[in-house]
């Protein structure tokens, strides 16, 4: 019962697509996916609830929000500001964005758990300074059909005639570029060492350690 070898993990060295700007610092995961949409046992269908309370009023009529605008409907690169994804650990947040169509996020900064959850889904979260991000957000507004190329390996973003340097966390870059961002099979292959570690730790009781396979 341990056949993870058949799980294909694509290499994510490059993401290209049109952009959508989501402005504001400290956008929390309760904004990205309100808790009432988390009363589910799968992630299917979460895309339509991304940013729901910012997109719809109490009668479910659409409000002004980039995700409601026709020109951004095919966007796959989200451009955000600082401390994006703060708050709860809910993977429902990046799952909702991914299912809406987002493949990469460029921002000033990301909350740690959110960035980790994105990585576990193969979504790069790359960073640049505040001014660079605002310039890019303005460009996306003016060029909703303009392609943005996120080169994860080279740590650059190209749009229009411009190529800018961005930062990708070292471990994230390696994991994405080498296609090892889904760590289950990789870590499972070390089961023997894990068991040894368990045996060494004084608080782990013998009966809690499974027999070798």
């Amino acid at each position, binding site marked *: *019962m*341990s*056949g*993870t070898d058949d*799980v294909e993990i694509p290499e994510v060295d490059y993401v290209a697509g049109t952009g959508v700007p989501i402005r*504001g*610092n*400290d956008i*929390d995961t309760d*904004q990205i996916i309100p*808790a*009432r949409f*988390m*009363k589910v*046992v*799968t*992630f299917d269908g979460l895309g339509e609830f991304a940013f729901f*309370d910012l997109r719809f009023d109490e009668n479910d009529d659409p409000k002004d929000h980039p995700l409601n605008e026709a020109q951004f409907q095919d966007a796959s690169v989200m451009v955000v500001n600082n*401390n994006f994804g*703060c708050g*709860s*650990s*809910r*993977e*429902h947040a*990046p*799952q909702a964005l991914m299912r809406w169509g987002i493949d990469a996020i460029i921002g000033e*900064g*990301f*909350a*740690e*758990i959110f960035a*980790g*959850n994105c990585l*576990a*889904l193969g979504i790069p979260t790359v960073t640049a300074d*505040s001014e660079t991000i605002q310039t890019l957000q303005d460009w996306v507004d003016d060029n909703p059909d303009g392609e943005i190329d996120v080169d994860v390996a080279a740590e650059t973003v190209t749009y229009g005639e411009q190529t800018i340097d961005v930062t990708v966390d*070292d*471990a994230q870059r*390696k*994991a994405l570029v*080498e296609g090892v961002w889904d*760590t*289950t099979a*990789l*870590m*499972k292959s*070390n*089961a023997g060492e*894990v068991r040894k*570690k*368990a045996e*060494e*730790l*004084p*608080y*782990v*009781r013998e009966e*809690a350690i*499974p027999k070798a396979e």
Partner: protein
Amino acid sequence: MSNGTLYDKVWDRHKVTELPTGQDQLFVGLHLIHEVTSPQAFGMLQERDLTVAYPKLTHATVDHIVPTADQSRPYGDDAAERMMAELEENAREAGIEFSDPTTGDQGIVHVIGPEQGLTQPGKTIVCGDSHTSTHGAFGALAFGIGTSQIRDVLATGTIAMEKQNVRKIQVDGELGEGVEAKDIILEIIRRLGTEGGVGYVYEYAGEAIESLGMEGRMSICNMSIEGGARAGYVNPDETTYAWLEETDYFQENPEEFEKLKPYWESIRSDDDAEYDDIVHIDANELEPVVTWGTTPGQGIGISDPIPAPEDLDEDKQETARRAQKHMRVEPGESMAGYEIDVAFLGSCTNARLPDLRRAAAIVEGRQVHDDVRAMVVPGSQRVQKAAKKEGLKDIFEEAGFEWRNAGCSMCLGMNEDQLEGDEACASSSNRNFVGRQGSKDGRTVLMNPRMVAAAAVTGKVADVRELKETSEVDA
């Protein structure tokens, strides 16, 4: 990089190997699961034909969606019933112990772990919940994870992590009357920012921290994530050991206590440990803190004026403007006198027995204001039972509070307990995000439990130090 801290030591003891990504593979000593973030992970296991590697190091509870009024099965809310049923099945199939409501041990995951002695110094503890940092109060290395990481932990007993920096937050001095652990952490977040802890683990130290009981330490570590730090901890000491000795685990296995104590002592930060950053806070200067905005970093002392956005750092100004509009507050005013509609005493931050005791001491002999609905949601069935036994339930009910069953409740509005419309809530919880308590126009003011009690009886945000304690309840 840090050296000789608890974080370094616990990390090293749990490191299995370095992964090709440069991340470390860490052994997980305790995996806590609940109904909201685990079902998808079990689904992923099934898809990959994998089983749970360390079921005996895994423990389940139900907290987020559980009704706090009528808990008879099936639950009134079909979605909640489905999530509960799924967790029951997953736990049963994998052989995972489940503190469900029939056991008398159910409660918020960050309340029951410490209660049962599952939470111990020097363990690595993970859970699909950002407030897992709570368990750091015992000197554990504890952090929240996402669902794909839950899959990893279930399948392998380990997690892939990058090591962070360590910031020591030294809180010297003594807390004044009416000032609590909650006020310390709200002040830390106000000062360092909601993103100030990104890339850091927080070590809380100093006499103001050491003199706190375990519950106060838990309130502080709980909200580390609100300051951007995924984990926070306090070095274990005699206060920690005294708590542990009383728990089920060590009552049932007293020999384990003596066996493990040297390990607990060994993982304390060394006196000459090196930190990446050190911050000093003077506890003497603090007063009860309340939030005026929509992030936990937007707090002020109860007698301080709400800041003008233009006086804040440039990157905070726009957030502050939006927050003040949402909360309908003006710069220059204090939060005292801000009218409230709801008082919520609960959550993994502040729903343990001493929290309820302190609030009851304010409530006794008073009545909940006519315009306020007030509720107490104990953090666990054990807290609920103990509070009832010592008369706190009666005090709250006589004052007009609703007395509920244990769960997360109105902290995040995933069950029936929600704000309606633009109601304002004095809340002992941890997040004042827009929409957090179930209504997107709802307004949350975070504060300590005694301040919630004061707000409940006066109908507005009030300085509890101006209300005399009316009871003999030993707080």
